[in-house]
């Protein structure tokens, strides 16, 4: 695998959507390629950032209680 292949498959690696073989190939490439490892770590951090920022909102307690009464 070269850097171009790695870049092309990075999204699916981050999303855990590669086959086992592809995943191992990509991991091997990352182990020997600091620039691709930096890129991977950046993309992983960005994905975590989006998740953490968007997960801060919780359903209001009043809505939860209202739904509980309606549904049960």
């Amino acid at each position, binding site marked *: 695998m070269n850097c171009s292949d790695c870049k092309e498959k990075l*999204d*699916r690696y981050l*999303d*855990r*959507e590669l086959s086992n073989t592809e995943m191992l190939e990509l991991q091997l490439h990352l182990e020997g390629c600091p620039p691709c490892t*930096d*890129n991977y*770590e*950046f*993309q992983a*951090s*960005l*994905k975590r*950032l*989006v*998740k*953490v*920022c*968007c*997960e*801060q*909102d*919780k*359903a*209001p307690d009043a*809505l*939860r209680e*209202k*739904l*509980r009464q*309606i*549904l*049960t």
Partner: protein
Amino acid sequence: MAESPPQTAFAEEALTHLDTLYRGALRLTRDPDSAQDLVQEAYLRALRYQHSYQPGTNMKAWLFAIMRNLFWDRFKGSRKEDVSLDDVGEFVLYDKLRDEGAKPEADVLDKLAASEVVAAVEKLPPLHREVVLLGDVEGFSYRDAAQTLGVPIRTAMSRLHRARQQLQKSLYDYALESGIVRANGTKEVPNE
């Protein structure tokens, strides 16, 4: 055919996904009151059609599909308009920061305000926003995201890829405007 689960058990399980549905509704409607109305309507519809839910399958995805279908019905008149994203090309924030000498690139992420990250998500057209919510926020697999959205897996993957590019462009623009980075390199911004 499997029997329908008791309503109470169904409701209890459904309510464990309330935060996910509310967050999704909030991001889609961008209004807390509308989000609550949408979520309530989604749960009522889920209760009405609980016989169509297969126990043991992904209830979160099932509920999210009901909610987002209602969103498109109520707020968009079922027209999933093909709102095109800005043509940002293959915009990769990491490459952009590296080219401009912003080292280490990850430090820039630490300086982005959470509200700006959420704003960047909310700026995406709804068809792209929802796939980011499913893939990046709720951790859906491509298959579950595609089923929830009623599209082929390749379409979900393509939308997610394009949405991420647009998201990264929006964050880069914000970083430039707020002085976190300069076009020719990083600018020192003290951490809070």
